[in-house]
């Protein structure tokens, strides 16, 4: 066993690069003497050196090929090449620069958009977390009418945030039943409207609706045209505002319910008002996104044109 271990330790991978350089006389004297000393006692290195030497001899024995024509450069060829290069339209020379500029714009706009998205995401995260706690609190005081409207608002937030917040979706139904009852709606006309607004917020993401939210939507339909009007608008604004409102509602202290309701209703009125005009459709493509798309298209077009031009020029030079 010890013998085998010693043999394995003695075995090594021959340094082909050093042996090859030794053959070509590219090692200094010290390296040559050290290598020669090792090779003299190493069978593996001796074998590799012999193989490299024979390969080198085979290659060296290859005859030179004789050119069948002269490669002298003619003045006409030089002129032709110069013509191809100088006849290139100046506008084409600007294409790579334009592409680079568009790429920079794309990166900058993308960065701004990304940072905007991050800040929006963080606020929506806050809104998603809040409804769950708000709904839980309101479920404990379900007899309080004002809290009922708060629960509706919270539920709107839960539905608005869609299926991405399971805790909100799971807790909101417990809080919602008082909100479905007519007393809350009749005692607080504002709350009715707020239901309508929350209904409009819920109506758009129909795939993520829970049963209580469907109830809110039914109420919206009975409440009149406001809900249906708002429901026809793009869900983006209404949903975002509903989230924000539900967050605020959920964070409001229990002792300040009336103030909270006033705040909520005013905000929801604002939300529904903002959501109604089709001109304020922020769910579509923003200016920043338009810039990104245009810059991206310009970058791709410039790259393609530059590549085509280069290939075309090379072919013409042949």
């Amino acid at each position, binding site marked *: 066993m010890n013998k085998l271990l010693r043999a394995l330790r003695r075995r090594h991978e021959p340094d082909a690069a050093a042996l090859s*350089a030794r053959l070509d006389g590219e090692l200094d004297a010290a390296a040559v003497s050290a290598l020669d000393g090792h090779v003299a006692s190493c069978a593996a290195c001796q074998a590799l050196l012999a193989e490299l030497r024979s390969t080198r001899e085979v290659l060296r024995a*290859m005859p030179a*090929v004789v*050119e*069948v024509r002269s490669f*002298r*450069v003619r003045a006409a060829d*030089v002129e032709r090449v110069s013509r191809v290069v100088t006849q290139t339209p100046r506008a084409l020379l600007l294409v790579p620069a334009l592409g680079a500029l568009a790429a920079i714009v794309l990166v900058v706009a993308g960065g701004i958009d990304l940072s905007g998205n991050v800040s929006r995401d963080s606020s929506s995260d806050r809104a998603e977390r809040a409804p769950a706690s708000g709904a839980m609190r309101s479920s404990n005081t379900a007899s309080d009418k004002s809290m009922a409207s708060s629960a509706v608002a919270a539920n709107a937030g839960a539905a608005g945030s869609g299926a991405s917040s399971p805790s909100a979706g799971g807790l909101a139904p417990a809080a919602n039943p008082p909100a479905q009852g007519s007393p809350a709606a009749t005692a607080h006309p504002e709350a009715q409207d707020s239901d309508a607004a929350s209904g409009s917020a819920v109506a758009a993401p129909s795939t993520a609706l829970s049963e209580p939210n469907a109830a809110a939507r039914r109420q919206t339909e009975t409440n009149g045209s406001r809900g249906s009007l708002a429901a026809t608008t793009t869900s983006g604004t209404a949903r975002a505002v509903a989230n924000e409102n539900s967050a605020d509602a959920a964070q409001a202290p229990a002792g300040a319910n009336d103030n909270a309701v006033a705040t909520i209703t005013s905000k929801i009125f604002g939300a529904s008002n903002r959501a109604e005009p089709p001109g304020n459709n922020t769910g579509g493509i923003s200016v920043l996104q338009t810039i990104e798309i245009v810059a991206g298209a310009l970058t791709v077009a410039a790259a393609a044109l530059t590549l085509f031009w280069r290939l075309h020029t090379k072919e013409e030079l042949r």
Partner: protein
Amino acid sequence: MTNPPPGAASVPDAEAALIARARTGDLDAFNALVDLHQRLAYNLCYRMLGSAPAAEDATQDAFLSAYRNLSRFTGAHFRAWLMRIAANACTDELRRRQRRPAISLDAPTPLAEDPLQIADPASGPEVEALRSEQQAVVQAALLRLPPDQRLAVVMCDMQGFAYEEIAEAMRTSIGTVKSRIARGRGKLRRELGPAVEQ
């Protein structure tokens, strides 16, 4: 193989004078440089591409490009600079083949395309036929090497360039050249097993 003498590495005075004249636009002076180096450049292109017509095109492109860019030559080894331009022309051709593959790189060179080779007049026809066959095998094995190893092996073993010149031509370090030559020789040894034994 007629390898250039090892001492012919740096730019001789006569060549330097031709280069200086060619830089002023003297085409005759440049063509005198072409006469000096065209066989070397053509052989490099032929070994890199494995086809005489492609090698001719690449060599012509290389000299045209060298003339247009002569002002950029600042190194000590003119022929290494020329070989770099020739190698670039070969690289362009190899890329073009990759984009539009027409023939297999692995296929042996067709005999009809074989250029004239300097033969030993003392040997008989049988020996010559055998040698020719062996050369075709070696050329086919060379074409199976990666281009960077092929260039290093051709410049070192078939054209007698020093490592320093090869490094200049390949724009890399001497250590990398050493490694590429060793790996190229190793692969050729495995490819040419029986041929090397002969």
